[in-house]
C-alpha cells in the first residue's frame, strides 16, 4: 500500500490557516472522516497479504495517532481562543485590605527626603539616655531653669548615672559630634518624651533635628536651608519669619514662624547657631568650626499638612482615621 509521505505536513500546514471551528471540523473530516485516506486505507487492509498487512497496519496506526494528536492539539488552541464563559465583570473583586504607612512615618520621610540629597546622614539614637547626653553636654547645667522647660521622665536605676527618656533628639547629635568625622551634616529623627499630657501635648512625640558642623557656616546658611526646606515641604512660596528665642544649646537661638492661611503666624521650628560650650564639650575646635542646628515636631507639621485638629488621633489606633491617609 502506498502511504503519502507528506500527509502530516500538509495537514499541519492547512491547520495553521484555520480561522473558525467550522473550518477545523471540515478539515478534520477530510483527514480523519469516513472518506478520508486513513479510514479508507484501513478498510482496504483486508485485501492485502498477511505479512504485508501487518506492516501496513502498523504504519497506518502510527499515522492515525499522529493525525489525531495533531488535530487534538489544534482544537485546544482554537477552543482556548474563542470559547469562554461570559462574566459579569462588574461584580465585586475578591476582598482585599489596603495598607498604609502611618502619617507620622510619611511626614518624617518627607522631611528626610529633603535633606538626604544634601548628604545629611541619618542617626536614630537612644530613647533611654543619660543626663549627660540629654542635658549636660547640651549646656543645660544642673539646676538650670531651662531644664524646667523639659518635663523629664526619669528611670529607676541603681547605677551611678541618671537615666531618663530623652526630651529631644539632640542627644543623638552629641553622640555624633563625639564619634563622627567633621564636617558633619546630620539629621536625628526619633521619638522624644515629656512628662506632660493634655489636648495639645502628648507624653511622646516625634522630632527631627538637624545639625551641621563645618568651617564657615553662617546664620545666613541656616536661614537659607530652612526657608528652602519649608517651601519644599509645603510646596509653595512661604512667608517665613525668624525671631529671637532661647535654647541652651544654641546662641543665638531663633524660632521660625510661617504665615499659614487664616491662622496667621505659626511657630514651626526652632533653630540657632550651636553654642560654643556644646562644641567645646564635644572636643570641636571652635576657632575652625561652627555649627547650626534646627529641630521640628513632626506631629505639628503633620497636623498642618493634613489638617488634623487633635494630636491624640495619631496614637489612637483608629482605623477610620488611618484609612484617610493614602499610601
Amino acid at each position, binding site marked *: 500500500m502506498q502511504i503519502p509521505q507528506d500527509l502530516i505536513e500538509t495537514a499541519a500546514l492547512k491547520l495553521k490557516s484555520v480561522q473558525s471551528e467550522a473550518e477545523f471540523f471540515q478539515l478534520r473530516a477530510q483527514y480523519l472522516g469516513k472518506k478520508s485516506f486513513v479510514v479508507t486505507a484501513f478498510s482496504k487492509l483486508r485485501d492485502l497479504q498477511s505479512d504485508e498487512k501487518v506492516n501496513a497496519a502498523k504504519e497506518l496506526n502510527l499515522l492515525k495517532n499522529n493525525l489525531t494528536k495533531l488535530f487534538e492539539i489544534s482544537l485546544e488552541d482554537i477552543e482556548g481562543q474563542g470559547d469562554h464563559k461570559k462574566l459579569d465583570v462588574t461584580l465585586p473583586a*475578591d476582598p482585599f485590605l489596603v495598607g498604609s504607612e502611618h502619617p507620622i512615618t510619611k511626614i518624617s520621610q518627607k522631611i528626610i527626603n529633603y535633606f538626604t*540629597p544634601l548628604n545629611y546622614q541619618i542617626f536614630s539614637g537612644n530613647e533611654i539616655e543619660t543626663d549627660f547626653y540629654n542635658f549636660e553636654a547640651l549646656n543645660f547645667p544642673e539646676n538650670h531653669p531651662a531644664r524646667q522647660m523639659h518635663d523629664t521622665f526619669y528611670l529607676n536605676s541603681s547605677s551611678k548615672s541618671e537615666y531618663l527618656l530623652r526630651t529631644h533628639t539632640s542627644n543623638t547629635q552629641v553622640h555624633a559630634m563625639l564619634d563622627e568625622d567633621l564636617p558633619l551634616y546630620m539629621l536625628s529623627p526619633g521619638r522624644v518624651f515629656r512628662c506632660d499630657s493634655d489636648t495639645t501635648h502628648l507624653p511622646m512625640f516625634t522630632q527631627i533635628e538637624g545639625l551641621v558642623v563645618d568651617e564657615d557656616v553662617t546664620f545666613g546658611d541656616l536661614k537659607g536651608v530652612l526657608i528652602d526646606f519649608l517651601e519644599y515641604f509645603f510646596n509653595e512660596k512661604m512667608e517665613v519669619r525668624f525671631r529671637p528665642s532661647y535654647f541652651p544649646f544654641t*546662641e543665638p537661638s531663633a524660632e521660625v514662624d510661617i504665615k499659614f492661611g487664616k491662622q496667621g503666624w505659626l511657630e514651626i521650628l526652632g533653630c540657632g547657631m550651636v553654642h560654643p560650650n556644646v562644641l567645646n564639650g564635644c572636643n570641636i575646635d571652635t576657632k575652625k568650626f561652627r555649627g547650626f542646628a534646627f529641630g521640628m515636631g513632626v506631629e505639628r507639621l503633620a497636623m498642618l499638612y493634613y489638617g488634623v485638629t487633635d494630636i491624640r488621633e495619631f496614637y489612637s489606633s483608629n482605623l477610620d482615621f488611618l484609612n484617610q491617609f493614602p499610601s
Partner: protein
Amino acid sequence: MKIQYSYLKNFLNTNLSQKKLSDVFTQVGFECEIEGSLIEFDITPNRGDALSLRGLEREFNAHQLKKPSQKLQTSSLKLIQDKKIINHIDGSGCGNYHLMPVKGLKGIKNLDSKKRSFIESAGIPLINPLVDLGNYVMLEIGAPMHVFDLDKLSLPINVRFPQEKHNAVTVIGGDVKDVQSSSLTIQDQSGIQAIAGIIGSEASSVSSKTSSIAVEAAFFRPEVTVNQARKYGLATDASHRFERGVDPELQQTALERYLFLLDQIAEYDSVELYYSYSHKTKKKNVKLDVARFNKFSGLSLKASKAILILKNLGFKVHTRSEKNVTFNIPSHRFDISMEEDLYEELLRSYGYDNIPISKPKAGPIVNNKQNNALDNLRLGLVHSGFKELMHMPFVSRDSFHQLNSNNWKPAELHNPINENEPLLRGSLFRSLFAAVNSNVKKGYTSIKIFEAGNVFKKEKSGFNQSFHLSGMIYYHEPQQTWSQKELIYDFFSLKGEISKLLHTLGMQNIEFQKTSSLMPFNENALDIFIGKQKIAVIGEIELSVTEKLVKKQAYGFVIYPEKISLASINPKIVKTSKFPLSTRDINVVLDKSISYEEVERSISQGAIKHLVSFNLINTFEGKDIPKGSVSMTLRFTFQSNTKSLLESEINRSMQMTLNLLEKRLNAKIRS
C-alpha cells in the same frame, strides 16, 4: 507674665496699638499673645531681667532707638550695716540682703485703682496694701520683695541653711511645709521666718493690725532657688524671678521706690535701711571682634553700628582696639558672658529677618551607614495590606509580665504620667491587641496591622533598647466572596506572607526553626534565621496573654530590622539552563511524628542528581492510610545544564530519592 496693655502703653509712653506692640516684642525675642486687654509675654528662662515693666521698657527703647528711660522716682535712704539687725548671711546662697524697717504706720490706704487692677491682671491677688505695694514694685522694676510684720520678728536676721534636716514651718496661707536643710531660709531668733525667695511664714506675716513692717529685698542666687519652689509646691511670682535671676544691684533702689510709693498711701514715724552683703558682684567685660561676627552672621556690619546697637541695650564700651571692642555688661544682663552672647544681641537688634540668606549647602558624600531594612520591610507590609499604627510605650505591670519572660527585667519610670502604667514596653503586642479590640468593637472584621518601635529592658548596668517590627493578622469572621471562593487565613498563610516579604527583599537563605521563645505565641510558632542570626518569629497568638482583647485565632510576627542588613546582599549571577524542566510526582506514606522539615532535610542532604527543587503538593490521612501515618504527594523538578534529560536519567534520580526516604524515614511508597 501678663501685663495690662493700657498700663504698659502708658509706662512705655507709646501710641502703638496692642497688636503692633505685641509684634515689636515678639520680633525682639519676647513672644507675645494677646488675651483680651492683656498681653501675655513668654519670657525665655535666660531673660529674667525682662520680667518687669522696667525690663520690657529697656528692650523697647533699645529696639525703637528711643532714649534710655528716665529714672523712677525714689525716696533715697542711707545704707546702714548693723549686726543687731542683720547678723549673718550665707554667701553661697545670698549675695546681699536689705531690710527696711518702717515703724509707726498710720492711716494706711489702698493703692490707687489703676495699680490695683494692674497687679490683679498680672495674676497676683490683692492681699494688704503693704504687701500689694511690694508686689507692685516687683512688677514694676523686677526685684521681688517680702514684707514682714516687724513686731512679730525677733531681730537680728540670719540668712542660712537650716541645721536640722527637717523643719516644720507654717507658711502664709496656713500650710505646714517640711523645710529641708537644702533650702536657704530667713531666720530670726525664734526660727525660720521665710523660705528664701519663695514664701514667708504665717507667724511673721502682715495683717490689718500691723503697724510696723520690715521690707526685705535681697539677691538670692539662682542656683539655690531653682527647683525649691516646685519641691514645696509653692511656685510664686518671686520664686519664678529668683530662679531666672534678679539684678543683684537693684535691691536698694527697689526699697527706695517702695518707700516713695508708701508715702502716697500711709504715714509713718521712722524708716531705716539696713544691709549686708557677702561679696560685691564683679563687673563683667566681654570682647567683641566685629570681623568674626560678620563671618558668623553673613553680615557686614561696621564697628560703629555694632557699638551703637549695644550702647542702646545698656552696654558700655570699656576699651577699644583696632580689632576688638570690649564692653562692660550692665548688672541686669547676667545672661551675657561670652562673645556669642553679644552676637545674639546684635542680630536681635538688626532683625533676624534682615540677615541675607544663602543657598542650601550640601555636606560631603559619606558612605551611608544607615540600615534601610526597616523602610523596605515597612513598604512590603503596606503593599500586603497592613496598616501601620503607633502607640505610647507605657504599659502596666500585668501586661508587661504577660508578654515578657521573667529574665526580661522591665525599665521602670520614676515619675510615670499614669501610675497604672509605670513600665516601658518590652513588646509591641499589648498595643496591637488593644488596637484589634477597639477596631473590632467598631465593626471591623478583617484587620492587618503593624507597628515599628523600640522595646526596652533593664540591664545590670543601664538599659537596653531594641527595635521591633511587630504585626498582627486577625479575621473576626471568615472572609466570604460572592463566588464562594474559600479565603482562609491560617498559620501557613502567615508563613507564606512573611516568606514572600523576606524573599522579595533579597533574603534567599532564610531558615525556619521551631521556636524556643514563645510569647505571645502558642506552640505553633517558628523562628526565622539567616545563618546564626535570628531575624524574626512568627506564630499563632496565644489568646490567654491578650487580656481578653483578642477573642478569636489571630496570627502575629516580630521582625528585628536591626538584625537584617540588605546592603550586603550582592548575588553572584550564574548562567541559566536552556533545557526543559521535567517533573515527577510520588506518594509516600510516613509516620505522623516525622515533620516535613525532616523530609526536606533528608532530600536536600541526598545530593540527588539533576534535582532542582521539590515541594509538597498534597497531604492525605484516612482511607487506605494506616492510623498514625500520613500520605504526602511530593513533586520533584529535574533539569540539566547541558542536555535534555532522558527518561532513564530521571527515573534513576527518582529511585535514589525513594531509597533515601525509605532508608532514612522509613517511608512507604504508595502506588
